[in-house]
């Protein structure tokens, strides 16, 4: 196989994402700064200023304007990307629903961060979960390498004729956005060739005049929304196909979920994002002691890969679903999603961890595996919650 990578570079998740954007060469990138996403747009701005990428960079006056400009640009026939986090994503939500409804394939990096109030700039998945009904494809990276690889894959998923939806690529605030790791970058021309030209069926600036987003009465709105939902469902297969094409070409396979040491596992944890690295260390340590434990990391969150996840869980007996977000009044998002589609034999338990950047250590993960040995009643358990009953956590 031809050597397609440039070797390893030490980059933060934010920088790696900016490199992916540079190599994809989007036509338009509207930007507005917000921690911890800012390194992405700032690094990308430098690439534009240095002439390393020919992109129209729009500095606008809010995230709402950034996403609005992105939808306009994408529908006019431009490959469009942006980036945001937390309150910025919250402010974009109105327009994110517009992007999905108008089938504007905008690709967005998200530096996942807690939501106000009180204000907190650290990592959790509350912002991402706010977007879970928006109709966008949502993917979460574990580390800087995945943030890069998934960003390279994202335009092909967003722009696929069966999908035509925005794609959000999440990476945990600070633990990925600002943490330097070895990242293997692809060659510029390989990325451009992989991504291909931007084509949407009815660009506003195309040969065929078109109108977008016109009033839909009760006689047509329902059908349009169902078609949109079906397009998001179709994105699961497209994600798998693009992942396979990426693996064939570049030798790194990124599936909808990652099963880590699940062979013969009796107890498993399911989680999203950068805590996967911590959990893998914990799994390795426990496996060394002969404990039958495994880990499943969910990358593709919308559409939710129910079947793939069930296969990854296999014959496991007890599963701890770790959410880095809450859904007050009911079970947290990841747990609810799994519960809704899982028909396997395992007992599912809900745990919440790491809100607002609260640290999660390998020992915390080991405690969860130990807790899975003990019979428990239903309910949500909160890891590392100070000064309160931790719901019987051992």
């Amino acid at each position, binding site marked *: 196989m031809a050597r397609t990578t440039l070797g390893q570079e030490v980059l933060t998740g934010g920088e790696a994402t900016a490199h992916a954007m540079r190599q994809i060469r989007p036509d338009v990138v509207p930007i507005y700064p917000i921690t911890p996403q800012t390194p992405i*747009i*700032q690094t990308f*701005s*430098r690439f534009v*200023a240095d002439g390393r990428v020919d992109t129209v960079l729009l*500095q606008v*006056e*809010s995230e709402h304007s950034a996403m609005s400009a992105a939808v306009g640009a994408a529908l006019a026939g431009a490959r469009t990307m942006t980036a945001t986090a937390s309150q910025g994503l919250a402010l974009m939500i109105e327009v994110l629903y517009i992007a999905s409804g108008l089938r504007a394939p905008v690709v967005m990096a998200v530096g996942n961060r807690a939501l106000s109030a009180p204000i907190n700039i650290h990592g959790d998945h509350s912002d991402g979960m706010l977007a879970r009904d928006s109709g966008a494809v949502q993917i979460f990276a574990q580390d800087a390498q995945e943030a890069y690889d998934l960003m390279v894959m994202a335009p092909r998923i967003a722009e696929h004729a069966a999908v035509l939806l925005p794609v959000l690529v999440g990476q945990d605030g600070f633990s990925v956005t600002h943490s330097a790791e070895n990242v293997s970058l692809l060659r510029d021309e390989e990325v451009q060739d992989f991504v291909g030209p931007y084509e949407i069926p009815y660009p506003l600036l195309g040969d065929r005049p078109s109108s977008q987003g016109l009033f839909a009465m009760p006689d047509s709105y329902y059908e349009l929304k169902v078609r949109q939902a079906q397009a998001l469902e179709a994105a699961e297969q497209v994600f798998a196909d693009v992942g396979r094409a990426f693996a064939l070409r570049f030798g790194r396979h990124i599936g909808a979920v990652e099963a880590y040491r699940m062979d013969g596992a009796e107890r498993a944890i399911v989680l999203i994002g950068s805590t996967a690295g911590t959990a893998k260390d914990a799994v390795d340590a426990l496996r060394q002691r002969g404990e039958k434990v495994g880990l499943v990391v969910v990358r593709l969150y919308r559409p939710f890969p129910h079947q793939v996840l069930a296969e990854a869980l296999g014959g496991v007996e007890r599963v701890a679903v770790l959410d880095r977000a809450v859904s007050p009044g009911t079970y947290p998002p990841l747990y609810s999603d799994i519960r809704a589609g899982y028909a396997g034999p395992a007992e599912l338990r809900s745990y919440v961890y790491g809100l607002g950047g609260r640290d999660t250590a390998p020992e915390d993960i080991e405690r969860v595996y130990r807790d899975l040995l003990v019979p428990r009643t239903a309910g949500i358990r909160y890891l590392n919650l100070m000064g309160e009953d931790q719901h019987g956590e051992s």
Partner: protein
Amino acid sequence: MTKPGVDLTPYLRQEMMPTVWCPGCGHGIIARSIATALMELGLDMDLVAIVGGIGCSGRAPFYFDANSMHTTHGRALAYATGLKMVNPGLTVIVPMGDGDAAAIGGNHLIHAARRNIDITAIIFNNSIYGMTGGQGAPTSPVDSRSTTSPLGSIEPAFDMVELALAAGATYVARTTTFDFQEMPKLITGAIRHHGFSLVEVLSQCPTYYGRLNKLGEAPDMLLYERDRTKLLEAFGPAPEITREEMVGQMPIGLFRDAERPEYIDQYHGLVARAGGGK
């Protein structure tokens, strides 16, 4: 100016010191001026509410021993409007940054000014987004450099005074952190004024704006503030100044101190006329 030896500590939260602001930042000078104004007005700090947005200026409410609220980017005036409407007895002060006032929250600024609600907005204008690392703002002058405009900004900066005047603010002033003696007087006047008051303070950000634009250290930037501004009085009775002429002589001083019915008064007047609010 506060005389040497005047103790402002009763107006500040000692446990929050030192501030988050970088060495040489102008925001501390503005915070001191606000404290001085509060002292000179003899206000009961339990009846003062300081409502901040996001960014370096958004930290200001932390430092005053008053009622305080840290809200969302650009929306502090909207929160403050709700606060003031139901408790008009509170003195409401809103420190705002470039983004709060001129970008994401520009809409709230013009509507607060249009209604003439009795709130004092103080713009900490350092021409850049400091908290997120030096990105360009709508207050960044043409050709100025930021991390998102490394080759210089092509957009004209908002003139916040012109904007406030046009939107109907009834007390409008501009000063700089160099003019630390004048600033507390303008802020005192703004707080005392019954109606929407806006004081724009040109502040220095040596960490980002100064470094990226080669303006030197904080003292150099204070002289830069002095040199790029000119007292309003020096222009004569009706300053007709074009944007181009403003380079090097941006007018500072009190632009408007006028009476116009205040929004909450108008509201309660309407309720009374309609026979309610007995």
